[in-house]
């Protein structure tokens, strides 16, 4: 994915928050998971991933903490905060509204 536009940046936040909501994950795993679950359609580059992660962390929606991987390797895991959970709900709601609206326009009979 090239550098995202404004629209897609909001969506990127949604994807990350949702991924982290399931369980605390580190950056590499977040990108990998999004790629896998979306069937290789959504590939997030490092240039977009880490700035987004750090911004979300500064805004208080995710929180970084030290942790260990399955291999015992030290890494920084991100977990969803309470405020982040509320933000996730808001994002999902606005994504639903948006995608419904776009669908309505696109499926309009010619």
């Amino acid at each position, binding site marked *: 994915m090239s550098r995202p536009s404004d629209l897609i940046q909001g969506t990127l936040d949604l994807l990350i928050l949702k991924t982290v909501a399931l369980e605390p994950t*580190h*950056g590499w795993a977040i990108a990998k998971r999004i790629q896998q679950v979306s069937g290789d359609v959504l590939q997030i580059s*490092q240039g977009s991933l*880490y700035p987004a992660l750090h911004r979300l962390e500064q805004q208080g929606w995710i929180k970084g903490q030290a942790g260990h991987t399955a291999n015992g390797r030290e890494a*920084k895991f991100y977990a969803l905060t309470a405020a982040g959970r509320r933000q996730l709900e808001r994002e999902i709601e606005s994504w639903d509204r948006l995608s419904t609206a776009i669908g309505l326009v696109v499926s309009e009979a010619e």
Partner: protein
Amino acid sequence: MSGWSRLQSWFGQATGRAGIDQAHLDEWQFHIEQRAADLEHEGVTAGEALRRARAEFGSLDARQEESRDAVGLRLFDDLRADLRYAVRLLRQSPTFTTVAVLSLALGIGANTAMFSLMEAVLWKSLAVPAPHQLRQVGWVSGPKQAFNMLWGNESQTATGGFTSTSISYAVFVAMQRAAESKGAHLSAFKPIGRLTAVIGGDAELVNCDLISGDFYQSIGVRPLAGRAILPADDRRNADGTVAVISEAFWARRFGRDRSILGQTIHINQVPVTIVGVNPPTFTGFTAGRQPDVFLPVTAQPALLPASPDDDVAMIDDPRFWWVLSMARVPEGVDEAQLQRAMNAAMGGQVRPLLEAAPGASRPHVWLTPGGRGVDDLRDEFSRPLIVLTAFVALVLLIACANLANLLLARAVTRQREVSLRLALGAGSFRIARQMLTEGLLLASLGGAVGLLLGFWLRNGIPYLLGTSWEPVPLEADFSPRVLALSAALTVGTGVLFSLAPMWQAARVRVAAALKGGGRSTGGRSRRVAKRSLVVVQVALSVVLLIGAGLFLRTLWNLRTADLGFQPEHLVLFTVDPPRNGYSGGARTDLFAKIEEGVARLPGVQAVTLTTEALVANSSNSTRATPTGRASRGNADRTWVNDVGSDFFRTMEIPILYGRGFGPQDRPGAPLVAVVNQAFVKNFYPGTNPVGQTFSAGGGQSVYQIVGVSADARYHRINAPMPPTFYRAYAQEDDLRSMTFEVRTALEPAALARMTRGVVDAIDRELPIFDLRTQIEQIDATLSQQRMFAVLTSAFGLLAVILASIGIYGVIAASVASRVPEIGVRIALGAGRGQVLTMILREAVTLGVLGIVTGGAAAALLVRYIASFLYNLTPFDPVSAGSAMLLMLAVAVVSGWWPARCASRLDPMQALRHE
């Protein structure tokens, strides 16, 4: 996350950069390793996987920047980088930095000192609660007044009437009652000068203020220690009275010892119990005075002599107007109603006086804002301050022009750097911001040093106004307002002189700049800019120099003005016997004894005494009417001084007709007077008045003229010699303080010692004070003009130095850019002298342009200082001419060194010069 914790997080990221960067690196290292592991799973070799993973991840620095950008730190990072770069640049050129910082420091420091003075004179409010509620009480009347004795400030209005702030005590009491009925509170106060205090057996002088009993309550001053003066204390009491002392007096005299509370001292032989200490922030209502002791106003009859005309105490005399008053008007009180009520009260008190003086006009009350106390300082100093601030602002402008020029010169050498940055993708806004940051950094450095300088200088200027025997009238104040103004000035200056290089940087054309060494297509406009800046500098300097010249000549004119008497070798001192010890005739006897004793001292050629010292900004005036003529109202105004019998010989004032005073003019003998020429011109024009009589002082005393003296100055030099009549002090009773004038070749200290001996023989506890020479006394009245002359000369010198640096810089740069051309000229046979004159002509042209512009500007501006000049037209050719010649000389001298270097160029080297 709340806004506050977000701010904290941002701040933490801004400052803890190293740690955060490392954390990011760790995170990304992990990411790369995971990616490499994935690639290995797909069959790539370990080393290749790692390489590909790294390449995929891209530049770590770029990632760092993106992360910081996402968090909102981009601006902060950029500014920090700009700042570090600016610091590095400044350190690389220490001379430039020193010169720039010093010029700025001088300009900003001088301005800061001015601000602190303006704070003290124009802005600072009294340190009492709600100063905006205070109103000073004054009145206005028509030309003829119902009373004729006033102690205080009185001035004439434009319509010939009078206005003053002094009222009689009876009027105050009536107005106080009226004010209370309307919800306001009126308090009285009066600075009464120095009284003799005996503390622990030692006699000394203390500065005293009288206040009414409700003063502390209504004005809202809370004592630091002990208690305030209460309304109950404000009663006439035969056993003495109470007092509150100032914090400064408490520290100075009693070392802040609390045991002084409750002790009794004697002031003018009245027992006074000290009951409290004022807070250090309150020093009475008159700025510039430092009263030591505050006493209730009803203590006046015991402390001070009665009013001049009869034996009635001042507070009981309805015809003696002397008390000042301040009203506190709380919120919600109708001020117009209050003023009407007070006016009615005053009218009631004044009615019997009006009936006794037909044709007199009724005074009307008017209230002025009193939040700054009695605004004598503002009246006296506000216009001079404005003039001086204008001068100082000009100096700062010259410094800015200098800096702009210096920065423009540096811009040339930085063209390569700038164009490189542009080529690498920096926006011209970013470049301009860099220039601005450098400018602001320079300005901040200059401002910081300037602030220190201003702080150090702030006492210097009031010191110019002080004398050796009186306290300094002004105290500069470094309030937050002054600091804020100084900071704003620094930032404004930085922006101002950065404009030139910023504008320059924005116009650089990349390709040409990268190729050509020091030349660029912007050269011509830059040359014009630099030259215009120098012309502006020279013009401003000329304006300052002309101003300085005018003030210097004014001071000179004043010091060499004809006084009418001989001021050299005259020593003055003042004696003020306490009223309780000496009253009426006893005072006259005391003075006579001292006069005799001093006259007998070896080394004393002559001695006399006067009620008012000459040229001391103080005088007595009254109305005189020649016998048999009708009163002419204000035209009958004359000045009066009570003098000793040897007055004319001591002061060396010639007697033109008749005689001076002598031993025959004793108490009880017929009243005599000696008048001066101006008096004769006013009252007896064209005749010899010796033998004629006139009445003065309200018609009770009739004087016979026994002599006519030459005109002499009275209270000021820069006022025409007023019509004056002199009385023999021996024939007056109830004199107040007298100043002795001793003609002697002795040093004042030596004379003081011997005089002390004389006085000790008469009364050990009688202090002698205000020892000074007549010259020092006269100089004290010239303090404002001296301040002007000293300061404007200093500013002028500063301006000249800055302008000469500017001229030097421009000529040197011009020579540098013309080196090949000069080489050609010399090679073709031009002589050294010719090259020298060619370069000098450039300097002279700049100088002349600036001088002409400056002269024109000065011609427009001098009218604003015309009122400060003495015996001098604002267009004085000597001042203007010498200022212009000086500037021309400076231009020539500044351009001389580069011209000399140019004339000594080796043509071969010059032609090879790039």
